[in-house]
């Protein structure tokens, strides 16, 4: 399982495709959303966490499609399926790889977000870190599984957000609500219930992915 | 509370429900009867052309 993860990291370091896609898309969405708010209005401050999460969610969705494409040329997916490893492990490796790519993208995107909304850099990053990371894990889990599902349909790009985002509603709501509270200075304990929800979401979809991947890839 | 204005909403709500169910049922009925006819035709064709 680790071998698959390391392989994905090696390919990514060499081609940097997914990382570049995630970064640029995130930046693009941040900018476009900033147009939605008149720079002077107080509304801008209140909407900040929402903007960040929308950028994370949509950049992640579009980036997720790329992750399984790597297995398509030369039919490498069959190479993996032939390995003496059960199919759930392949899912976990791909999900972790996606999680790491998205986390890496956030290392650049969150400071940019802070820059656009002139928030205090250090406090924002330290406060948001737990929520964003928990959120990204769940997002990678549900995203990887449904990327594999949508690969097998005719309208791949459209299918992934349609399948994934409604299911990820609790993750998005919890992420935004927790981030808003944290940015407003609430202690971590005050958002514990949101974090528990995120953790539960991660656990549920990592397990569902592990079990269902066998059926997703079979002919 | 202006009583009369709300009656249309009440009627509208129940009308929507009945309309929805009705549209679905007619669609389903039409599809089923078309399928039944097709089954009959195909059976006939099969019978006429014994293997």
């Amino acid at each position, binding site marked *: 399982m*680790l*071998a*698959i993860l*390391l*392989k994905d990291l*090696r*390919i990514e370091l*060499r*081609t940097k495709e997914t990382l570049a896609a995630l970064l640029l898309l995130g930046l693009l969405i941040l900018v476009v959303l900033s147009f939605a708010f008149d720079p002077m209005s107080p509304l801008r401050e209140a909407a900040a966490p929402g903007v960040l999460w929308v950028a994370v969610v949509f950049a992640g969705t579009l980036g997720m499609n790329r992750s399984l494409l*790597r297995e398509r*040329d*030369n*039919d*490498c997916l*069959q*190479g*993996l*399926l*032939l*390995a*003496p*490893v*059960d199919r759930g492990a392949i899912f976990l490796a791909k999900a972790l790889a996606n999680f790491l790519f998205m986390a890496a993208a956030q290392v650049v995107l969150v400071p940019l977000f802070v820059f656009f909304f002139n928030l205090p850099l250090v406090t924002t990053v330290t406060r948001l870190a737990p929520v964003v990371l928990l959120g990204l894990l769940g997002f990678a889990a549900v995203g990887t599984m449904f990327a594999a599902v949508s690969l097998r349909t005719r309208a791949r790009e459209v299918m992934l957000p349609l399948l994934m985002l409604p299911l990820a509603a609790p993750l998005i709501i919890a992420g935004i609500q927790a981030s808003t509270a944290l940015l407003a200075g609430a202690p971590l304990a005050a958002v514990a219930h949101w974090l528990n929800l995120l953790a539960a979401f991660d656990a549920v979809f990592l397990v569902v992915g592990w079990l269902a991947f066998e059926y997703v890839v*079979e*002919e | 509370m202006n009583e009369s204005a709300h009656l249309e909403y009440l009627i509208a709500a129940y009308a929507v429900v009945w309309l929805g169910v009705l549209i679905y049922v007619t669609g389903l009925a039409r599809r089923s009867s078309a399928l039944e006819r097709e089954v009959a035709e195909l059976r006939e064709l099969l019978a006429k052309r014994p293997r």
Partner: protein
Amino acid sequence: MPTTARAPAALELQQVSKRYGRVVALDDVSCAVAAGEAVLLLGANGAGKTTLLRCAATLLRPSRGTVRIGGLDAATHGAAARRRLAVLGHESFLYPDLSAVENLTFYARLYRLRDGAARVATLIDRLGLQGWAHRPVRALSRGLQQRCALARVLLHEPALLLLDEPFTGLDVTAREQLCTVLGEVHRRGAAIVMSTHELAIGLTLCRRAIMLVGGRLGWDGSVAPGDAAALEDRLRGGRAQAVA
């Protein structure tokens, strides 16, 4: 074909059927390939050859019946069964952005081979890939990619080799080399199930042939190198009668 008492059959299919909705790809096929035996898989296009190979490789779950690899039931011991087999098809299963060595090292780790690096090195030399070992697979010619794929197949010394039209798209020299390597592996005891249209080459390796007709087992018998012509017309005729 009773399983020899000494070693379990390299591959055993018991009443295997595979349906895609209404289309029946395989219909109640039962056959066994003993350890170290080389079998030619024949049949017109769409007769079920690829489906049979994919079921044998545990890539496809049969709708009915069981597939056993080295005595292990593929449905319950999938992972362990896969350790014993390898597949060489049209596609190389190699990552274009990684070099030949990186690809092979990845597969060595995937198959958890302790002496992975050593095996990769010996295979690179044996297949004459030294010159191209560190260039991304994307840059290699079709013939070279096929040789890398062959290296990948031999990495974990499988007891069963499943080959789906391995010779298509190869030039003459590449074909000869593939044939000699397969001969070596076969002599060292690996069972081979090969589906190919190049009967001449196939017959140099295999002493037995199985023919699929419309997803059913049409014929299963021993063959000699000279039978290419006879097999050719049987394929066209599709009738099941004894060869010489």
